[in-house]
């Protein structure tokens, strides 16, 4: 079994990577059910020389391993996992989907058999109970008990197999898991009932056995569904890329079909109309229309002109286009996203760790308590010792306790993914729920980052259209976001051949046989001899950005460019404030435009002309005052500030998503999802608390009842199962769409077969 799995791995490529002697892989391990399973894999792998780190997520059964390739191989790691009793399965490929399907089908069959069997057994048991009161022919009673035995046997051996196997694994590893106490109860009850049936005297507990198995499986079923749903979000992304690409062989337009893995940077590809763009690249055609819904969730097709970036995984919604590959297939944005998600899903949140420790601490105490109860009853009334021991074992199973946190976190993560908010760090949800202050960046966050030309002033030597055309010819070479405002004004035949960008200043180049400079006022005036023209003569409206154009005789024109607020910025700010959050604006821009934005949004706290260190100081001082700060920035320029914040969110735009060093990534170019996300996080935390309180209450209340013999085993079975079901169902409430929050954003296309 393990050998086959390792063989499949060799075919896959993107789930494991090796560089500079360090290997990293993420895979699913079938059979992970509890904290104990995770602990046994962790200790098993830690014992292997060369393994440098292991992270395991109990909820989705995902394992992430780092190792030194010189000392240990991936094959050895996978064999170790397999020898511990877990089947490693590659991620996000067809094999993973097929494995999930098989797991789903097997559980369905187990539940079906247990359900039908327990209904039958309960019917016969009802006959036996009535018979006990009204009198029953002993021969008929014996016949009914034999029938129960006949049905309970396949239910225990087939439906209960995963539980029994889990317990065997635990015992072999000399650890104690939840499966041990559950199996102990099942086997004791079944063996005593079978023995009593065959000798023709004494109590039988077949109804409790079958019912307990049925309810346990039902609880695990819902837990498994949540796990599969979370995995299918990642799968939908990973499966978006085609297996082949059409490569342009020569200038005449001949194409050949090659496997995607063979595509190299710099090569040219053709993408037909309606086809998926296989890699990140630059448009070579004049114009292209792409649908990036899958990658960014943006539902409106986007226009891209020649030279602009295309995202792998988006769909060519226009005519056939040609592109130049800018990133190798395994380094594309989409793969980076998938890896980021997988990593986040394999991390264990702080919140979960506490509950796991509590559950394993609990199991040892339960076994000691059970023994004590059994011995006590042997002295008081030996005939009641056995049912009391069974009841304690069943009622105290800490299933609900260990499920309480992970199910809620998993539900919140997949809910956020559908909102277009990617969780890239496991603790992000807890952090988001605790936030009380939001620090916002201006450009690219509150504003769209796409500039608009407001007006032109010239000195009269050239007219406005000509000034714009010259500026456009120069700005074509700029990477500054404001440059986009000039491009529509470009004129054919007016080009610049020798443009040179001076970082942070502007661009210099010749157009129509003359030297020009465009950029900051001081820079543009620099071509002319000093003092020839006062720069402020052309200074424009202070609330907006001024770009100046100058030649060797001085400043010739100035352009007033604005960066507009996002359409939903105002509504978002209002809703964030309704959530009780304190909002601060921190920008590197000049005072006037920042004040303008703050005024428009009704923000009282703002700081302008902040360098990154200034933002960091502001953040630190807020944190010193005891605030929990959420920082929202564009993910690249704000890197250190994002890293220092309690929780950080990056605005994902295009290929920068992959580089964002933040806890959360807003995939869509809208802010609307932010207040909803905070609401979801808060609700998730409330639900975690409810779940933990409920589970602790149930276990504490059930123990004395069971120990005193007031709770028959079948009541204990129902109580235990109901408490787990309540915990799982409670967590699923997070997925329910909140009617109060308008769902203005489109869902990520998650596979329908969740």
């Amino acid at each position, binding site marked *: 079994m393990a050998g086959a799995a390792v063989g499949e791995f060799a075919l896959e490529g993107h789930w494991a990577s090796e560089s500079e002697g360090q290997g990293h892989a993420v895979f699913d391990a079938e059979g992970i059910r509890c904290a104990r399973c995770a602990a046994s894999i962790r200790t098993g792998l830690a014992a292997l020389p060369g393994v440098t780190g292991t992270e395991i997520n109990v909820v989705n059964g995902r394992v992430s391993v780092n190792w030194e390739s010189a000392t240990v191989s991936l094959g050895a790691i996978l064999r170790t996992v397999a020898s511990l009793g877990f089947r490693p399965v590659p991620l996000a490929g067809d094999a993973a989907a097929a494995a999930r399907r098989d797991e789903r089908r097997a559980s369905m069959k187990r539940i079906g058999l247990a359900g039908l069997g327990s209904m039958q057994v309960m019917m016969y048991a009802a006959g036996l109970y009535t018979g006990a009161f009204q009198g029953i022919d002993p021969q008929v009673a014996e016949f009914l008990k034999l*029938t129960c035995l006949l049905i309970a046997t396949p239910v225990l051996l087939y439906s209960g197999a995963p539980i029994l196997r889990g317990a065997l694994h635990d015992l072999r590893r000399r650890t104690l898991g939840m499966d041990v106490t559950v199996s102990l109860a099942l086997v004791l009850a079944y063996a005593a009932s079978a023995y009593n049936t065959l000798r023709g005297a004494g109590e039988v507990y077949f109804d409790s056995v079958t019912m307990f198995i049925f309810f346990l499986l039902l609880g695990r079923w819902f837990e498994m569904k949540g796990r599969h749903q979370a995995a299918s979000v990642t799968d939908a992304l990973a499966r978006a890329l085609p297996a082949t690409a059409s490569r342009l062989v020569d200038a005449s337009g001949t194409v050949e079909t090659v496997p995607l893995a063979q595509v190299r940077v710099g090569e040219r590809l053709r993408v037909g109309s309606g086809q998926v763009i296989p890699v990140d690249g630059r448009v070579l055609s004049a114009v292209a229309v792409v649908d990036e819904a899958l990658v960014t969730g943006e539902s409106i097709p986007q226009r891209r002109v020649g030279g602009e970036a295309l995202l792998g995984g988006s769909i060519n919604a226009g005519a056939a286009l040609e592109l130049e590959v800018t990133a190798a297939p395994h380094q594309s944005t989409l793969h980076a996203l998938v890896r980021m998600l997988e990593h986040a899903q394999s991390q264990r949140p702080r919140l979960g760790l506490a509950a796991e420790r509590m559950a394993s601490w609990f199991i040892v105490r339960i076994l000691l308590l059970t023994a004590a109860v059994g011995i006590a009853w042997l002295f008081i009334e030996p005939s009641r010792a056995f049912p009391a021991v069974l009841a304690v074992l069943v009622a105290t199973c800490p299933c609900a306790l260990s499920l309480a946190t992970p199910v809620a976190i998993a539900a919140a993560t997949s809910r956020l993914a559908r909102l277009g908010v990617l969780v890239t760090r496991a603790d992000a949800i807890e952090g988001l729920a605790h936030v009380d202050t939001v620090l916002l960046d201006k450009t690219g966050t509150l504003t769209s980052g796409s500039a608009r030309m407001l007006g032109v002033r010239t000195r009269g030597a050239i007219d406005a259209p000509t000034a714009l055309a010259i500026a456009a010819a120069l700005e074509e070479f700029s990477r500054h976001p404001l440059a986009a405002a000039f491009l529509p004004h470009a004129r054919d035949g007016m080009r610049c051949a020798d443009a040179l960008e001076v970082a942070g200043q502007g661009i210099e180049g010749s157009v129509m046989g003359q030297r020009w400079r465009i950029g900051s006022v001081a820079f543009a005036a620099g071509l002319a001899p000093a003092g020839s023209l006062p720069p402020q003569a052309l200074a424009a409206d202070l609330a907006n950005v001024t770009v100046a154009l100058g030649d060797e005789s001085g400043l010739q024109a100035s352009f007033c460019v604005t960066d507009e607020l996002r359409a939903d910025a105002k509504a978002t700010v209002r809703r964030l404030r309704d959530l009780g959050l304190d909002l601060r604006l921190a920008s590197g821009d000049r005072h006037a435009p920042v004040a303008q934005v703050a005024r428009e949004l009704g923000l009282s706290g703002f700081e302008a002309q902040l360098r990154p260190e200034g933002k960091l100081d502001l953040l630190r001082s807020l944190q010193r005052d005891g605030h929990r700060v959420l920082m929202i920035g564009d993910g690249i320029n704000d890197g250190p500030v994002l890293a220092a914040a309690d929780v950080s969110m990056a605005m994902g735009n295009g290929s920068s998503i992959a580089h964002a060093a933040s806890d959360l990534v807003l995939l869509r170019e809208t802010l609307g999802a932010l207040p909803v996300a905070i609401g979801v996080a808060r609700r998730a935390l409330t639900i975690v608390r409810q779940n933990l309180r409920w589970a602790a209450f149930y276990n504490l209340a059930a123990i004395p009842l069971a120990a005193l013999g007031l709770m028959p085993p079948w009541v204990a079975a129902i109580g235990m199962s109901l408490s787990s079901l309540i915990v799982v169902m409670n967590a699923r409430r997070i997925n329910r769409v909140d009617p109060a929050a308008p769902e203005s954003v489109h869902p990520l296309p998650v596979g329908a077969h969740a």
Partner: protein
Amino acid sequence: MTSIYLLIPLSIGLVAIAVWAFFWAVNHGQFEDLDEPARSVLEED
């Protein structure tokens, strides 16, 4: 009361058939997608 010796084996037989039918349905993917087939009858080709 002798009828019970006929009826109970009969009920076991019925359960066996139900279990077999359910296993067949699961193995043939009848529960894989519970939403789409209902919608697909309404869609035009």
